[in-house]
């Protein structure tokens, strides 16, 4: 039961943190639970599919199908996070106004819900497919370990949900006016970390064999395998020994998001001409 608990917990931490941040970033937005639920549901379904077709997936691209797939969905998530932040930069003031008006729902925020549910879906899919394969492996061995697996897996999931709740309620203690700034900062770092991780998969697939030399090594301080290392890896893209390409991707993503956020005018470009006016009841 204990190994199952540890592995499941380790895998769900990442998805849990991301769900927590997304929930905080969409505080007050109607239908956001539905969007997050959709993301989680699609992610779980996708995880089962990926686990079921792991062999077929691995066989693509001269045995590097898995790396290609991981890099692709990570970059998709980076695009969605970027879009969310840029959109928020254009509409943040509007949303803050709505949030301050007591009893009002922040209708404006609904536009980026789909982008964020894609991000949640990707996070759940990536971590979930490993959980599915691992638990399936234990189940296939049968015997007494099966009930332990269910208990361990269930507890692991609960612990992951706990992490998610901690992140969410922790962020909600931040005053509403500052919350947007904090969540867009977190989302920028999340995106940068994912871009750096995508670079690793591209390198492992043999597509990006440039700047692979380690630039610095902080494994003596925080090991990436430790709980602290994993939390930092997910939240800010911590890598114990980053190579040049990783650092370039990380810095370029932050730079790109910051520049795009500065460039977008208030009341931004994302608003469709026929968009209904925000809630004013």
């Amino acid at each position: 039961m204990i190994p199952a608990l540890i592995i499941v917990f380790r895998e769900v931490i990442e998805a849990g943190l991301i769900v927590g941040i997304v929930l905080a970033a969409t505080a007050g937005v109607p239908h956001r639970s539905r969007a997050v639920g959709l993301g989680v549901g699609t992610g779980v379904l996708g995880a089962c599919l990926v686990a079921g077709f792991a062999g077929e997936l691995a066989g693509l691209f001269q045995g590097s199908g898995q790396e290609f797939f991981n890099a692709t969905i990570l970059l998709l998530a980076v695009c969605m996070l970027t879009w969310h932040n840029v959109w928020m930069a254009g509409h943040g003031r509007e949303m803050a106004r709505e949030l301050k008006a007591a009893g009002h729902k922040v209708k404006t925020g609904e536009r980026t819900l789909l982008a964020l549910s894609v991000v949640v879906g990707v996070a759940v899919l990536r971590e979930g497919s490993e959980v599915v394969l691992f638990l399936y492996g234990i189940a296939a061995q049968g015997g007494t370990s099966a009930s332990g697996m269910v208990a361990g897996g269930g507890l692991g999931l609960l612990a992951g949900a706990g992490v998610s709740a901690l992140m969410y309620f922790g962020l909600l203690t931040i005053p509403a006016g500052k919350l947007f700034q904090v969540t867009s900062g977190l989302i920028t770092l999340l995106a940068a970390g994912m871009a750096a991780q995508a670079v690793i998969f591209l390198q492992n697939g043999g597509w990006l064999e440039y700047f692979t030399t380690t630039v610095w090594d902080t494994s003596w301080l925080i090991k990436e395998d430790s709980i602290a290392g994993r939390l930092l890896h997910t939240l800010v893209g911590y890598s114990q020994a980053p190579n040049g390409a990783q650092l370039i991707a990380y810095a370029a993503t932050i730079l790109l998001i910051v520049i795009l956020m500065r460039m977008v005018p208030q009341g931004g470009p994302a608003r469709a001409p026929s968009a209904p006016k925000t809630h004013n009841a």
Partner: protein
Amino acid sequence: MTMKNLSLLAVVAGMALATSGFAQEPIEVHLKNHRFTPNVIKVKANQTSVIMLHNDDDTADEFDSSSLKVEKVVPGHQKGAVRLRPLPPGKYPFMGEFHAATAQGLVISE
């Protein structure tokens, strides 16, 4: 932004075409009863190398190493290529994450 993304994609795709294919013979490693054979793998320092991992067990395992920056799932009775970037001399532990109690190994770069 879309133009930038597209051009980035094109660059990545171009590099994919330019560098695909294995540079050298892969090092064959087997995983049986959740143990690696050989469990100590020597590679030449500062050169790309490839481990061909044959999972001879019935269930999947994940070749996992934070020092090698590799996470790769290999389903039961399948094989997977694990590419190692050019490594400075040193020791790099790895494990089969799903059976970490027994599936342990070490890459030595020299």
